[in-house]
């Protein structure tokens, strides 16, 4: 539906709702015409978008929670168990593995590096998990492991952009922007695309990872901060109570309504709606983000401590936002870049700490969603921007002081659950040392196409015209992987 149509519709709805404005309470209704809640109409017909008809199948998932492990965790220490690599430990890497390859840091001939932690099989599915994720071991029968995911990039920022915008260069809309552009939000009082960041700082790709690129800026991700104000400029200035603010917004909209009568520009109606929405968000956002009201057992389950920036808090927040109909909830947890160049980047140092930070909350998130009957309609995705080499990194030819691995895009593990994907299954295989995929590989564009498919979107049809060309999340690639779908 075009903007004009939306505005016409808004005008209609305005005329029926003007008594709300007249009698002094703040009316509803106008908010729905905002770009903020997506390109779909106020009537919430699920599948009509600005970009035309992009639906092909009925949606299996209503929303996505994407747990991105920025910095790229080692699949060889978590999910992709390679006993042979143990026997090759500390032996020079054969030339055949190095020929024609470009690495970020490895130079010359590095040594192989065996798995650094013990693995066991868990659940009825017999899924391999290392000792670093003791809680997650109990959830494996709910999870789909994808072991031969591959990407084209081997540096953080480009690879993260590739994962989240489908292109390694800056300037393209992010995954969540595309989805909210297509589907809008389910909750007209909250943004459709929310970003939660934890770790010592944000991901390398910066805010472009949740930018709207060439899509209107109303589709960009809104960062909710877990410390301080959840949304920038959300709080009234000191001394201004909610009541006083209410009077102000009432006066603004009353004068704006008068202006609309005189001037006739429907954009004024849109602005009135946005002021109502802002007023409502001042209420809904603090409520939605207030994890203190959760019962103790939930806090224990997630390992949350209110008012701190943590992955655990963000997982719980993600569930609360999912409950309230936020369409795309993007988590970033940084600090996985285990090169072995210092203790923070050490597989036996920082890496272990990261595992402890995510193990309990991500497991709790799966269980919690399941417990509430929400897992079916919520697609949870976990993974880094690429994987790590089976070789010990030798930066500029000299073996690093700690155990660590270089960036590697040819094969790495991601997992998904809920939202109509098969569970307790492992899809894709890598070779005996986990260097490359040998069966059922999944390219990033395939993964993106598949996730969109679960949301009921045909990835080839959700397009936007920019610089004379129709762009889409998956560029000109991507195949839906039907084998992993229920």
């Amino acid at each position, binding site marked *: 539906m075009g903007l004009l149509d939306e505005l016409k519709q808004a005008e209609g709805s305005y005329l029926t709702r003007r008594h709300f404005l007249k009698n002094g309470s703040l009316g509803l209704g106008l*908010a729905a015409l*905002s*770009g*903020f809640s997506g390109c779909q109409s106020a009537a919430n017909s699920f599948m009509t978008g600005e970009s035309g008809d992009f639906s092909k199948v009925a949606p299996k998932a209503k929303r996505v929670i994407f747990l991105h492990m920025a910095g790229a965790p080692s699949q060889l220490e978590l999910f992709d168990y390679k006993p042979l690599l143990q026997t090759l430990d500390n032996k020079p890497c054969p030339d055949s593995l190095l020929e024609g390859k*470009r*690495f*970020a*840091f490895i130079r010359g001939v590095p040594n192989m590096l065996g798995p650094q932690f013990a693995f066991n099989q868990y659940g009825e599915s017999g899924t391999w998990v290392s000792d670093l994720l003791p809680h997650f071991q109990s959830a494996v029968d709910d999870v789909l492991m994808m072991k031969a995911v591959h990407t084209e990039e081997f*540096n*953080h*920022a480009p690879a993260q952009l590739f994962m989240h915008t489908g292109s390694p260069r*800056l*300037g393209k809309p992010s995954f969540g922007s595309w989805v909210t552009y297509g589907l809008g939000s389910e909750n007209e009082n909250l943004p459709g695309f929310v970003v939660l*960041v934890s770790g010592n*700082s*944000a991901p*390398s*790709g*910066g*805010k*472009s990872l949740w930018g709207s690129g060439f899509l*209107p*800026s*109303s589709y960009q991700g809104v960062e909710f*901060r877990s*410390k*301080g*104000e959840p*949304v*920038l*400029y959300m*709080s009234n*200035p000191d001394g201004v*109570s909610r009541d*006083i*603010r209410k*009077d*102000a917004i009432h*006066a*603004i909209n*009353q*004068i*704006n309504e008068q202006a609309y009568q*005189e*001037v*006739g*520009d429907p*954009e*004024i109606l*849109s*602005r*009135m709606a*946005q002021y109502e*929405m*802002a007023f409502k*968000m*001042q209420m809904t956002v603090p409520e939605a983000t207030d994890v203190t009201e959760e019962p103790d057992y939930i806090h224990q389950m997630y390992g949350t401590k209110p008012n701190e920036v943590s992955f655990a808090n963000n997982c719980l927040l993600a569930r609360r936002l999912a409950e309230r109909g936020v369409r795309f909830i993007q988590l970033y947890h940084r600090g996985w870049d285990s090169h072995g160049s210092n203790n923070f980047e050490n597989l036996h140092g920082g890496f272990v700490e990261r595992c402890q930070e995510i193990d309990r909350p991500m497991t709790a998130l799966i269980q919690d969603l399941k417990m509430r009957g929400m897992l079916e309609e919520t697609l949870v995705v976990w993974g880094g921007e690429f994987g790590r080499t089976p070789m010990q990194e030798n930066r500029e030819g000299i073996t690093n002081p700690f155990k660590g691995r270089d960036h590697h895009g040819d094969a790495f593990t991601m997992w998904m659950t809920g939202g109509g994907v098969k569970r307790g299954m492992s899809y894709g295989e890598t070779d005996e040392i986990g260097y490359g995929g040998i069966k059922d590989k999944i390219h990033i564009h395939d993964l993106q196409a598949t996730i969109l498919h679960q949301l009921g979107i045909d990835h080839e049809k959700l397009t936007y015209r920019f*610089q*004379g*060309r129709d762009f889409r999340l998956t560029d000109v690639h991507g195949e839906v992987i039907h084998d992993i779908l229920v």
Partner: protein
Amino acid sequence: MNKIIIGIGILCLLALVSFNFFEEEVDFNTDVRPILNAKCMSCHGGVRQEAGLSFLHREAALETLPSGDHAIVAGSAKKSKLIELVQSDDPEMIMPPLGDALTDKEIKVLKRWINQGAEWVDHWAYIPVDPEVSPPSISSAWSSNPIDKFVLKTLQDKGYQPSPIADKSALLRRVSFDLIGLPPDDELANQFLDDSSETAYEALVDSLLQSPHFGERWAAMWLDLARYADSKGYQKDNIRKTIWLYRDWVIDAFNSDMPFDQFTIKQLAGDLLQDPSDQDYLATAFHRNTMTNDEGGTDDEEYRVAAVLDRVNTTYEVWLATSMACVQCHSHPYDPIDHEEFYESYAVFNTTKDADDGRDSPKKFLLSDAQRRYKTQIKHELDYLKTVGDTLTDSYKHKVSTLSDVLPLSVPIMEEIDRTPDRASHIFERGNWLVKGDTVSAKLPGKLNKFTNLDIKNRLDFANWIASPENPLTNRVFVNRLWEQLFGTGLVETIEDLGTQGAKPSHPELLDWLALQFTTDMKWSMKSLLKEIVMSSTYRQSSHVSKELMREDANNKWLARGPRVRLSAEQIRDQAMVVGGLFNPKLYGPSVMPYQPEGVWNTIRHVAKWETSQEGDQYRRGLYTFWRRVSPYPSMIAFDTPSRELCVSRRVRTNTPIQALITLNDPVYVEAAQSLAQASIAAADDLNSQIQTAYKKALFKIPDDEIMNTLLTLYKSTTQKYREDGIQDQDELHRKGMENVTSVIFNLDEFIMKT
């Protein structure tokens, strides 16, 4: 009998001829090309030529096909296979085989076009402006200048009436924001409002054009195109400490009304001019605004190539509104440039020394003109103090130290590589820089060079070609950009794309006439062009719109009313500071850091610190706000500034609740509202006049009774609530009441919009 038959035959022939004669001639570009593009070209184009047929060029389309048929027989729709097949009843035969059949209207157009000779005409924007283009002869009291004649002609054809001239207060705000990006100062405002003579408006326009803030306002537009930022982009997004000198060069260039052809040449190839000055070098920083990647482990050559590709794309978008996103990978029949030609343009830019290194070299030590003028001024002052023997004062010492602070800075510039060994330029197969195809050398794209017909060797030649009056695109593109800035929509809506895939011009003759004036009579003067536009009655119309007109022309394509457009991110913030009396009008200098909530820059690794500017620098124009690409200033990005990673021609204007939260709660707006409240209290005695003062300061008019009542009611309910909260002090209650009133004024639609 025979005679009769012959007679009837002649009559028929005459009828046919006269029918054709009076029938309006089909325009290939407007009428035919869109049909061919939409319905035929995907199978019968450049890449795919099913049945040996291509509609790309006339010669190809008229050729005898392998089947012996002729798709088109010029002059005879009847004999043309094309017409037979598009209206076939046979589902096996009908063209196109998939998708919608041609409508009756489309078939008629094709028939007429073929009967008229099936001429292929170049896309309108690739044909130079007709030097004879002139306004239609219409006499009307409404019309102030030739622009209005073009507009009025279209309005009459469509059956619309122009709107009356806007209220003085609206016009004052409109033209002030359009020319200097700020509301007018009190003096200028009063001069205009009090002057009822016919020349009042022109005097206002002339003053605004002379304002030093003029350059700042237009730099804000240009810096989006130049993808100017204070950081380098990508993962580390390190700071580019001296690039602001380029920003100051742009402000200066606009303020001095540098002819646009010079403005163009200096930025693209100032380093290649004969005896280039420091300012010529500084101008070339335009293309050093490309991103560089300092992330460990990245391939410098990969990002050098990316930067060069960006320069090609940016140059074509900025000056030629020609989209390159496609041809980087492959050719399309409708693109003016093919894959190989793209890389011939790439070869023009692939000759500079910069190589994605961490130091941003090559650089040059230099002073901007603004710095030089500043130095000269201080020297004069010092000389004066010396002559009066006043050299022991603090003021003298302070001036001496200021003088020594203004040192040349090292700015990234463009510079050619030494020619040995030559760096070869290759075609990249499917756009992949690792898959190199044939070697190419610098050359202009054929379709765009058809009328200029130049050979080029280097960047300077390329720049001269762009800036030549014969270039069919440059003047149209720039005129259209300015029109978009003033009216909210370009005469060609897709200001970034004047190609075949872009929108059609709403007023083609007007666009051409303005483009022609710009390069001839106006001698590429932007100020003359702007004056011509803002002096028109078209521009001065009221923006009020009736329901009927809204229904029929929601986007104001036909210009039966004045522009009503939201102010830009910079303008909204600047306006609040000016009206609130916080504004610091200082020009030029390093970028500043106004208040930003804690933690916003935590998003960035290797954090450079955001340190809030002091001494009034936090109230400088938005243009000077430090621009970090991975984390632009939050309130700017919320009002639709691009991130400046890539060239962006058009800011999409959104309307979101986050924007409302900013103008309600961002400390700069809160402070401005408080400050306006205090100033109004000081300026008048009673409540009514105080509210009127505040409202007039913001909107240059007195509120009507209804608005006054709303604001008074608000004032009363606010003070009542504060009283209930326990505030006793009358002055404090009054102030708080007024602050809520001024905050409301700052959030009115009329205040956020240019009306």
